[in-house]
């Protein structure tokens, strides 16, 4: 009997077609929609990438960081410094801002990797506060008032909006593709082994520390790029907003509601988040109370989130990151 390892799913093939269709729709938005819609799409993509990055950390590497706002802020400020002070092209500065965040994350890991589990969560939070306070006490960075991104002022407004939108779509596609390809790779297999059991994966030759460090730095890069994108869109940055715990709260709630430890979960969760927020826009901060309540409920009753309910019901996997053994004359074996 021949046994095949299946690495694609039918939902994945359907999903690929749907993905191309979605890209076509996204490409049409600037021509059919107004600036408001473009801003909403940019914001959605930014939140989605933040969610994917945090999901990689918490859902796969077991690193529950509550300090990802550090990299949003670092990315945003790096954009302003690179573009306004160092004369780098503002659009080119977006990926470079991610690099700045990645380098700082590598240095920061020397401190926060001394913490494990719940202490890692509070430790990353404390470090994010240190970054905020350092920025807020720096005259060059505008202290508590912050800065305005001036480098893009000479550009016509429409050009700026269009390029920002294009960068957002590119960042969104690149982030999802990168996470997907990473999880399908050898190293991704190692990461999933670490998630399932650290001692077992260590004994099979996976370098647990290195794997976690790679994920931590990569997530900081993605989060830093997103921070730069957010402030390329907003143009005005201040330490309290850029290093706000709210970024991590939005992200955590989206991922937990959508489904931790899957690629589809953050997408579903971010959609739920943005839709609920828009619906409750007239009711102050009630949306955060509702979303926080939903996240707590999900963690207690449905730890696999909304996408987990879908998988349990219909066994749909759009992003085939797992390997499934299929013998010709037997039913497919679900992964353990």
């Amino acid at each position: 009997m021949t046994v095949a390892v299946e690495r694609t799913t039918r939902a994945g093939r359907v999903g690929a077609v749907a993905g191309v269709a979605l890209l076509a729709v996204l490409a049409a938005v600037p021509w059919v929609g107004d600036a408001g819609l473009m801003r909403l799409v940019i914001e959605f993509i930014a939140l989605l990438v933040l969610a994917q990055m945090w999901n990689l950390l918490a859902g796969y590497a077991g690193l529950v960081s509550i300090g990802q706002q550090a990299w949003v802020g670092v990315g945003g400020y790096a954009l302003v410094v690179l573009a306004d002070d160092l004369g780098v092209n503002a659009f080119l500065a977006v990926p470079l801002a991610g690099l700045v965040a990645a380098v700082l994350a590598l240095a920061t890991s020397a401190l926060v990797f001394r913490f494990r589990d719940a202490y890692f969560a509070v430790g990353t939070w404390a470090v994010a506060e240190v970054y905020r306070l350092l920025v807020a006490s720096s005259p060059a960075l505008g202290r508590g008032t912050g800065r305005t991104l001036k480098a893009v002022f000479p550009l016509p407004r429409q050009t700026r909006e269009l390029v920002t939108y294009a960068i957002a779509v590119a960042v969104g596609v690149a982030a999802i593709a990168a996470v997907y390809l990473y999880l399908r790779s050898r190293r991704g297999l190692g990461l999933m082994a670490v998630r399932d059991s650290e001692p077992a994966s260590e004994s099979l030759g996976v370098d647990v520390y290195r794997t976690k460090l790679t994920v931590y730095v990569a997530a900081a890069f993605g989060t830093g790029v997103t921070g730069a994108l957010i402030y390329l869109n907003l143009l005005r940055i201040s330490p309290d907003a850029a290093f706000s715990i709210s970024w991590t709260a939005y992200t955590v709630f989206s991922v937990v509601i959508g489904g931790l430890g899957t690629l589809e979960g953050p997408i579903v969760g971010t959609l739920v988040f943005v839709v609920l927020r828009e619906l409750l826009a007239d009711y102050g901060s009630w949306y955060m109370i509702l979303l926080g309540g939903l996240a707590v409920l999900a963690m207690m009753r449905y730890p696999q989130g909304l996408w987990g309910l879908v998988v349990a019901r219909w066994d749909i996997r759009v992003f085939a990151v797992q390997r499934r053994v299929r013998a010709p004359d037997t039913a497919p074996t679900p992964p353990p």
Partner: protein
Amino acid sequence: MAWVDTILQGILLGGLYALFATGLSLIFGVMRLVNLAHGDFSILAAFIAVVAVETLDLNPLLALIVVAPVMAGAGYALQRLVLNRLLGRGVLPAVLVTFGLSIVIQNALLEIFSADSHRLNPGGIETASLPLGGGLAVGWFPLLTFAVAVLLLVTLQLVIRRSAIGRAFRAASDDGPTAALMGIDTGRLYAVAMALSLAIVAVAGIFLGIRTTFAFSSGPDRLLFAFEAVIIGGLGSLWGTLVGGVILGIAQTTGARISPGWGVLSGHLVFLAVLLLRPSGLFATSRRIH
């Protein structure tokens, strides 16, 4: 003399931080849980005190008689209805649930009490001071805070060392499942620990509210200071927690003296330095309480 004054104020501020840290340290010791909403519960307690003061016309210090039992009840219910159901599922669910609670409490306080700063007024004691000679003076209220912190630590230490429930705490701290096999109702025990933790946090919240202004978003800083005091002092050591709080307090007042914006930052930096040079804290014994 100004520097002696700065250090003295720092030591007394450390008493307040020890109050925050004690509750956090207790539940981590008993059930390895870090309550990310710890700081927000203290602010919630301060807001309940605001309501109690207004409706019952109480002195804020007397309001403790109302607020502490309310918070203890909330802690008991929280542990029984929510956190106990997450036991045995690793650390991630408890961290995320308490983080969710933290954000929910902050936003609920914002909706109910607006973004305005509040303060509790105990009627004079907060400004009275005790002259020490040589131009030095310490406030009666910071002194009272420090004394209450020491008193609470001594009492807690006695309870843990001498009482039946303290024995159960130590047993659960050593090995929860085995303690359960020996007939300890760990679910109830954890709920009692959380009730105790939130009652202490109520004391901390009211003392904070008398000392300084607070708003809906003041919670996370309290959690971080408490956490830093625990880590600086070393896990498992209640006295270490007091010393950790004092070191953090001195770091903050000294930093603030050098430059007004550097107070909180200096505290964080001293914490990171201790972490780098002595990761297990200054007085660590073991992760267990004893």
